[in-house]
């Protein structure tokens, strides 16, 4: 009887937690969708702002959409190039059991906890030093810093779940560590690695603080690495800050666009991850 009660009690608890999480998320999406729906139209996603856009004039946020994609996609690609080797190094096959690895792990955890605005300020200082002005390049650098620790740590946790016996099967055939990582571990870990990348990408594309000083803002489409770019989070921020209800609605519409972008990209990459891992052993 007591065990049955425990079982029911715990099930109820899980269900309640699940409902609150899903409920809160639904609520958020609904608020954004309802407030943004009226302003969302083809012009919104296909045009750059006109002169009077922020006074409720015509135009759209294509500048911010393309800017955000340019910023976050580039930063994510750069972050992968650094995060993957770091995560691999943290495996026990390489440096994972050394004291240095412990330091690196702690350091990444620390970086993870730093507020993005600090990366923005850091990036800004770095740019002043290098003589850069607010630009796509500056934004990419700051966002890479935001994404790196999340991605590296998430990847490490994923790689850590690969059974030692599976790696040993490869070693036993005479494969080197690199060959084993490349052909066995990465393949097996692919779905998890995709999740790690998405997690970081989501952080990157949604981040306003890191790009505020570093990428700047512009009403133009991104043209070069050395010119400012717009971004959706800042578009939301600026539009919400105007006194015009029509422009505020566009802020919600921009937020909705951001959500849809994240959603589409995450579904696409998950499908890709599944395709790449059709040979995976052990489910």
């Amino acid at each position, binding site marked *: 009887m007591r065990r049955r009660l425990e079982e029911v009690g715990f099930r109820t608890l899980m269900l309640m937690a699940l409902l609150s999480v899903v409920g809160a998320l639904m609520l958020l999406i609904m608020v954004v969708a309802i407030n943004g729906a009226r302003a969302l139209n083809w012009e919104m996603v296909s045009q750059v702002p006109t002169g009077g856009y922020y006074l409720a004039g015509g135009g759209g946020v294509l500048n911010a959409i393309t800017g955000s994609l340019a910023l976050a996609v580039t930063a994510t690609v750069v972050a992968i190039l650094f995060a993957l080797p770091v995560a691999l190094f943290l495996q026990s096959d390489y440096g994972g059991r050394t004291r240095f690895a412990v330091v690196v792990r702690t350091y990444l955890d620390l970086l993870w906890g730093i507020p993005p605005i600090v990366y923005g300020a850091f990036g800004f200082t770095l740019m002043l030093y290098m003589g850069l002005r607010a630009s796509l390049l500056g934004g990419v650098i700051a966002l890479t810093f935001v994404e790196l620790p999340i991605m590296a740590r998430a990847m490490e946790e994923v790689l850590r779940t690969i059974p030692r016996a*599976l790696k*040993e*099967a490869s070693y*036993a055939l*005479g494969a080197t560590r690199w060959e084993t990582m490349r052909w*066995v571990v990465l393949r097996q870990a692919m779905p998890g690695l995709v999740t790690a990348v998405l997690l970081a990408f989501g952080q990157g594309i949604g981040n306003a603080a890191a790009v505020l000083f570093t990428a700047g803002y512009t009403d133009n489409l991104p043209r070069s690495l050395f010119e400012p770019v717009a971004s959706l989070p800042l578009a939301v921020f600026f539009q919400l800050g105007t006194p015009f209800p029509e422009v505020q609605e566009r802020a919600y519409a921009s937020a909705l666009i951001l959500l849809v972008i994240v959603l589409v990209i995450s579904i696409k990459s998950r499908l890709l991850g599944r395709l790449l891992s059709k*040979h995976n*052993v052990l489910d």
Partner: protein
Amino acid sequence: MPHVAVRDLSVTYEGKIGFKSTTVEIPDACITAVIGPSGCGKSTFLRCLNRLIDNTPGARVQGEVLIDGTNIYDPGTDLSALRKKLGLLSQRPQVLPMSIYDNVAYGPRIHGTRRRAELDDIVRKQLEVAGLWEEVHDRLHQPARQLSLGQQQRLCLARGLAVEPEVLLCDEPTASLDPVSSGHVEERLIELKSEYTIVLVTHMLRQAHRLADYVLFMYMGELVEEGPADELFSNPRDERTRDYVAGTIS
């Protein structure tokens, strides 16, 4: 000089004994069974022979393992070349996350075989030797994980044979299989023993009876007795061997 000889070899795990100093030669072209109760050091012993033990945290190896006369614990040993010589069949079949074909071709590819026709030949030949070709020839490019456990273990055998080893190390290769699949694997080992030096770790006495030509009996980290199978089973010298063979200790 046999392919495998061990001199004063011992292993500790952070001070705890894996097995005590052991000197033994493994006879070629037959099946040597390493028997003994769980935890007596059989797997540890086997993992020393291809230096997989290097990957185990805390393990410390002392002594020498001579493979074809060279001590593999000498600095500068080419691990890849060493492991190519010693195939491994583990307790649970560990197929790689790729197709059946690629599992077998994995080893040869790593060691430099690139030509498709050559790989096709190797894959076919080794799958036949492992007794799996009939069952899988029409789905070579499907994921290996779709095979049954017994088929997976034979795939692992084919994969190991594909790099042309001289020695096969088998660590309780039938422990996770059903009786029919175990039977298949045992048949393969008997067929292969004329060409390979086979070290078979098992805690199943009956399997040792069926397969072994030579037997090492380990007990609590110690090599207690060794000898030709019929001799050791019918006329054990050590009391512990006698008890174990009779089934009074396990």
